[in-house]
């Protein structure tokens, strides 16, 4: 469940936490776009390293590391599939390795930036940001509720696992298919309790006059500060540099660089 831990917001204050969520989201999208623009290992590693100051500044190193650890499993699958497909396709080993590493790095950069975003943005701020971009309140509410319930469901999954283990269920027992089947007693209660929870939430909301007025007002209103403009500048800089490099420079592969050295 460590992947979910990496997405769980904790109330702390840091320069990154105080940034406007809309600007932060634009920044994450820019990083996302740059990670897609480049398929080579070197720029992707640079992109990865560039986020680390943000993590340190936000003071969420521990949770961030946990989410990175949670991504290891998927990252390994991505690496292996890419490597095998490239190698079978007739490429050299070194080239296939680098290509697979680049694709894995791209995934890691995506997880990394989203993790930083969710770790430093409270669901309330996220909802406000969506509302202030004139997205209908119903959608904003559905979205923030979904985000808010991810850690709750993760916790519930743990309790369900405990309850079934207490009835003699061994998740790690049997062959591959049996192991997948072992998860049925965990998934069904989880889905049912999520549905039940959502129905209860709907009733609770209705009884608290949800949707009674058309024009909702907010106690807090998001404002753009000076530090937000700095992030806008950084984002624009990263995007511009990335596009410039992509268009006018050939990016050497790690193999070529090392080969040149040798």
């Amino acid at each position: 469940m460590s992947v979910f831990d990496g997405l769980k917001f904790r109330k702390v204050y840091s320069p990154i936490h105080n940034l406007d969520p809309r600007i932060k989201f634009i920044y994450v999208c820019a990083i996302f776009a740059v990670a897609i623009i480049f398929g080579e290992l070197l720029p992707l590693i640079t992109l990865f390293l560039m986020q680390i100051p943000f993590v340190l500044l936000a003071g969420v190193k521990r949770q961030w590391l946990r989410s990175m650890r949670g991504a290891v499993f998927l990252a390994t699958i991505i690496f292996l599939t890419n490597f095998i497909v490239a190698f079978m396709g007739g490429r050299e080993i070194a080239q296939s390795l680098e290509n697979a590493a680049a694709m894995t790095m791209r995934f890691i950069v995506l997880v990394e930036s989203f993790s930083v975003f969710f770790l430093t943005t409270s669901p309330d701020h996220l909802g406000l940001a969506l509302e202030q971009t004139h997205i209908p309140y119903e959608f904003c509410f559905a979205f923030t509720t979904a985000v808010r319930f991810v850690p709750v469901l993760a916790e519930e999954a743990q309790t369900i696992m405990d309850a079934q283990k207490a009835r003699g269920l061994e998740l790690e027992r049997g062959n591959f298919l049996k192991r997948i089947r072992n998860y049925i007693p965990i998934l069904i209660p989880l889905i049912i309790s999520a549905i039940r929870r959502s129905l209860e939430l709907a009733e609770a909301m209705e009884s608290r006059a949800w949707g009674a007025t058309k024009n909702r007002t907010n106690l807090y209103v998001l404002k753009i500060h000076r530090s937000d403009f700095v992030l806008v500048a950084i984002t624009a800089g990263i995007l511009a540099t990335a596009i410039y490099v992509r268009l006018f420079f050939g990016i050497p592969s790690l193999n070529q660089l090392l080969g040149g050295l040798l």
Partner: protein
Amino acid sequence: MIEVEDIYFIYPSGVEALKGISLTIQNGEFIAIMGQNGAGKTTLVKHFNGLLKPAKGKVLIDRVETTKVSVATLARNVGFVFQNPDHQLFSETVEDEITFALRNFGFKENIIKKRVTWALNLLGLTQYRKTSPFMLSGGERKRVALASVLAWNPKILILDEPTIGQDYQQKEKLRQFILQMKTQRKTTIIVTHDVEFVAECNPRVLLMQDGKIVADGEARKVLTSPGVLTQASIVPPQVAQIFLQLPDLELPKNVIDIYEAQKILLNSLEKKAK
């Protein structure tokens, strides 16, 4: 027998839930663990079937250390019924739900059939045999969860909040059943906030507060000690409250049973009449 030797437990979030707990529970004992929310009651009992392992100290079940065996192995002897039945029900019918654990433990088909019938009968669920557990009411689902654990006849039974959502009749049945467990030298441990239920059963009471045991003794003694009870945010049972609030009548202070109280009050009235 359960032996707990000076255990400590810290959750990954950093909360220290148990702070040096030691206790011994003999076979056939009936124990109620009480205390306010977050006192560490559920954390403690989760150590008895190995779901949680102590950070420091030891838990031994029949002289076997819980860190040395799997939860499934321990679960064969230690049945644990969770507070919320919705955390375990998943089968299409009540019958399948009860069969689940029996299959996990490798019982033979003919024995499984007998055990299922026995458990359904015991908890008054026979008419729901082929019903989906999700169609049942909250209290009934709770009984299905209980039946699914009782079916394999564990030596130690742990019930987390068993009386929530149960009417008086079901509570009485539960009490009778626990007494029956006692006569079979089986251990029952309940985690509960239901003071009246505990008063009716008169078990050994463990009072917990802030990860420590603050009182351990007979229910009639612990539940009539206002000092420790206030500390653990528990109100004495109603009968005890009456006796504690009538100091002028010179009544005994350690009464929690209604019938005993009735007898004492009648005697006292008779004496006054003379």
